[in-house]
């Protein structure tokens, strides 16, 4: 903890701005506010700064949290946070940290997905595959400017069909049209499709495309309660691919440390404040935040906690209109990922090649694998052959995994026993395509979605603060407040639950900070 002032019960404090949540977006919000000369405090309920992206322990060692490569961050954004060249390896391009789709076939051991260069594919690829992949990449780069504009722009407010709305829709339509009629039709047609259909349009049923299809599905849909045959998942795929067009190779944990230092340098503080109890308000203005450790008065508040927690627990459904409360209650937040950390005594390497090249590794050898892994989650079970995404510590002896298709409400109930069963499914799968053996395991930590909820404050263990099905993407987080506003005039919503959702993105935080004078 950077600082840990008085944590006695009923301690009272007063600042200019309070930021709820110390995950990267919360820290970024605090930095931006501090740069505006505001006295800002970040309230974090747990021991870890950075939430799920902070460092957490497995056994005796401190694990680098759940580092995910920083796709979608722009140079301009890093500059705006005041980062100079020496604070982050920010000249490390995304190409230096490709995603590796790992296979279980000697002839096609892996596929490196990387937007800068054509995939560094090894093995014997068919001519059709190479051609199809080139055409696919062209398609993505044609769609990319538009998708990125959508992701970085505001969502049109469908509750007020005024001139603003017409303008917002018309400009988007014009931009779309600018792509050319054919390309525009193709994109419009592609967006609502199931990913499986889109990829089948581009790759047919080429056998050597399986690893690509599987990897893309896993990477773009993991944690969203969706699978490749679900309609609308092409939108998720395009979003994931287009945001990869730029970004940086450093991981989220590095970002967290850098932000922490920057905030402290600017005079901001991060406080271990215990669990949120309420956001007190009167006349639709927030006055103070109460936690189990004390209360903080401020003139402005930004919450990067998930929307359900912020609005239902914090503000209280009685202090907002019924439609807003209802819409918030209806948000689908079904967490379906688990986080597993492994400490090994032997470096991990792939089975069918020399070493891991990618920084972010995915195991999903085919689309059918991903779909089959998803099915059990609908019935309150976890997949015996799960989809795995992981990163390795520098010595390759610590593994940080995201395991997909793990239900929040397990039929058999989460317990040490069922967590152990999950661990077994994970390690069994690991041994399919890596050098892993049970004798390598020193210690482990298994965080099922319920543990994620209690430990990192994620409602229902939903790591994206809200599933990204199409309907929840076009009105994010809720239709009444897509513009960072909330039922309280001086409480702003930032965080992963806001448009565009998912990974680290400064759009919402920037918009929130902008509204604070």
């Amino acid at each position, binding site marked *: 903890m950077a600082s840990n002032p008085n944590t006695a019960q009923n301690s009272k404090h007063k600042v200019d701005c309070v930021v709820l949540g110390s995950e990267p977006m919360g820290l970024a919000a605090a930095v931006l506010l501090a740069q505006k000369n505001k006295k800002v405090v970040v309230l974090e309920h747990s021991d870890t700064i950075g939430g799920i992206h902070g460092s957490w322990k497995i056994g005796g060692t401190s694990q680098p949290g759940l580092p995910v490569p920083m796709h979608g961050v722009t140079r301009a954004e890093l500059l705006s946070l005041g980062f100079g060249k020496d604070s982050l390896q920010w000249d490390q391009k995304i190409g230096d940290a490709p995603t590796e789709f790992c296979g279980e076939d000697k002839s096609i051991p892996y596929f490196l997905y990387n937007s800068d260069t054509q995939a560094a594919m090894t093995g014997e690829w068919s001519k059709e595959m190479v051609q199809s992949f080139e055409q696919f990449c062209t398609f993505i780069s044609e769609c990319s400017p538009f998708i990125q504009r959508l992701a970085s722009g505001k969502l049109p407010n469908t509750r007020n069909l005024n001139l603003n709305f017409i303008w917002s829709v018309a400009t988007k339509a014009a931009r779309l049209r600018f792509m050319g009629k054919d390309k525009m039709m193709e994109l419009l047609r592609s967006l*609502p499709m199931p990913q499986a259909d889109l990829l089948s349009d581009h790759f047919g049923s080429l056998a050597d495309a399986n690893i690509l299809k599987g990897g893309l599905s896993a990477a773009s849909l993991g944690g969203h309660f969706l699978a490749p045959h679900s*309609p609308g998942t092409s939108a998720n795929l395009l979003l994931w691919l287009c945001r990869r067009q730029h970004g940086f190779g450093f991981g989220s944990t590095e970002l967290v440390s850098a932000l922490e230092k920057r905030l402290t340098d600017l005079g901001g503080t991060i406080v271990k404040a215990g669990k949120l109890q309420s956001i007190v308000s009167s006349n639709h203005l927030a006055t103070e935040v109460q936690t189990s450790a004390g209360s903080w008065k401020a003139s402005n508040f930004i919450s990067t906690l998930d929307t359900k927690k912020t609005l239902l627990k914090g503000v209280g459904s009685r202090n907002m209109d019924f439609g807003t409360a209802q819409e918030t209650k209806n948000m689908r937040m079904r967490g379906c990922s688990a986080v597993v950390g492994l400490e090994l005594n032997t470096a991990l390497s792939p089975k069918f090649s020399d070493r891991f090249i990618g920084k972010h590794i995915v195991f999903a050898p085919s689309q059918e694998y991903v779909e089959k892994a998803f099915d059990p989650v609908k019935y309150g079970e976890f997949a015996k052959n799960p989809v795995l995404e992981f990163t390795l510590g520098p010595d390759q002896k610590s593994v940080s995994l995201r395991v997909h298709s793990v239900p929040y409400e397990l039929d058999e109930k989460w317990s040490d026993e069922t967590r152990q069963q999950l661990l077994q499914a994970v390690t069994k799968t690991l041994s399919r395509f890596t050098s892993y053996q049970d004798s390598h395991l020193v210690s482990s930590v298994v965080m099922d979605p319920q543990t994620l909820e209690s430990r990192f404050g994620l409602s229902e263990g939903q790591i994206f603060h809200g599933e990204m099905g199409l309907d929840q993407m076009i009105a994010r987080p809720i239709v009444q407040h897509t513009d960072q506003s909330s039922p309280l005039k001086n409480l702003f919503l930032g965080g992963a639950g806001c448009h565009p959702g998912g990974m680290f993105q400064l759009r919402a935080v920037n918009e929130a900070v902008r509204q604070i004078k």
Partner: protein
Amino acid sequence: MIQKAKSYRSKYDAIVIGAGHNGLTCAAYLAKAGKKVLVLERRHLLGGAAVSEEVVPGFTFSVCSYVISLFRPHIIRELELAKHGLEILPLETSYSPHHDGPGLCRWADSEKSRREISRFSRKDAEKYPEFALDMQRVSMFARNIIDQKAPDPTSFNPSELWKLLKLGKQFRDFGPDFVHMHNKLLTMSSYDFLSEYFESDALKAPMSVSGIIGTFLGVRSPGSAYVLLHHYMGEIDGVFRSWGFAKGGTGALSNAIGRAAAAHGAEIHVNAGVEKINLKNGRATGVVLENGDEIAADCVVSGCDPFRTLFGFVGEDNLEPDFAEGLKQFRMRGSSGKVNMALSRLPTFKDGREGTAHLRGDIAIAPSVRYLEKAYDQAKYGEFSERPYLNIVIPSLVDPSVAPPGKHVMSCFVQYAPYHIKEGPSHWPKLRDKFAKTVIDTIEEFAPDIRDCIEHVQALTPWDLEQDYGLTEGNIFHGELSLEQLLFLRPTAGWAKYKTPIKGLWMCASGSHPGGGIMGAPGELAAKTMLRSAAV
């Protein structure tokens, strides 16, 4: 009405290929406008998939489609179909048996329905009429889209922009939350959408499944919510009782339209299958029949699906490569089959309910959402569901004309039966018996004496629907009703207004806007478009 002698005019204003209900509707409107129309049907009777056949002597089966849920009321009026023999009998109850207990039945009597639903959840019982009201409001809006040509938001044509603005104003009139409700219906799964209103599985299962009939979606697949509206659109047309089935089976509807067309002067020939469309300089000039006869016309309208029309009758060689590639991406992907049975008596459902009032509507084998989703899961991997969703109607309970006295017809719509089974579609005939057995086994779990009642079973797999009824890949809607294949994208971008790249060749069936469901709308709109453009 149906000509015996095969003598044709030297030239027609329009030839309609296929006497399915849309082809006949199109022909009727064209004939009504004074055009000389010829309808050519391959089979020996009218209807296509909207057909009644006496498969077993004394029993009339609605072989394929079995309810007329959405046939546009104004078409019934304008073509005077009642005068030509169309009688629609109401389907008023919706019964969903369970393995234990009396199951759930929803009635026309709203208090009775409330009491039934209360057995599972009191809150759900009270929200049920509120849900109906919400859906009715959206249906009022959706109706406008169905009854007009598809708006094209990608065109900058002033008339299109004007249409879009008017549409926007309609959105506004319905209130600030309407656009969002509409967006949710377009993008959510029927299960998730219903879960925002209801809590009990017993209610959500049968309600969500009406959303996926004929599609390759599960009740938990995003995008399945919109089809929930179908039922409610039928309700607002309820004054016409269009939510029901035709007396004499679905074929009675086709026959009535046929009579209406003939009354206006259209000629209809059966046993006159078309082999190909004659082209001259890229223009359709008429057709060639399977027996070699050539018939000329100013234009040709196809009542068949887009693949049969363009890859079949026209041929890929005669199409621009880009267009052909684009059209190939139109997904057919049939997902259902049909099992029709002649019964010596009514089976006994083990629900303990007295009488047969609850069997006079539709009977849905959809005991839980889990059951339905598991049925779907299998289809994803190329298998037909071991325990499928069944939508059963026993029309003989209300319409004595379809079975001998005391006997009955049982029509079972079966989902999922994917055309593309993992062994390949042509393997289907070998699976037909197993498929029929699966269906009967499923019914047996709810009505243990079904096997004792069966006199005859007719099983139609997606393969049979393709081979015998002209439905490519067995898709009952001539192409999936998924968002990327609707409106201005149906059947392919740029060709959603019933025209094709071949001059003089038009399409008027479910493969065009607004899609399938026995609406008659594609047929009517195609005819009106043709007449307005003076193509004929």
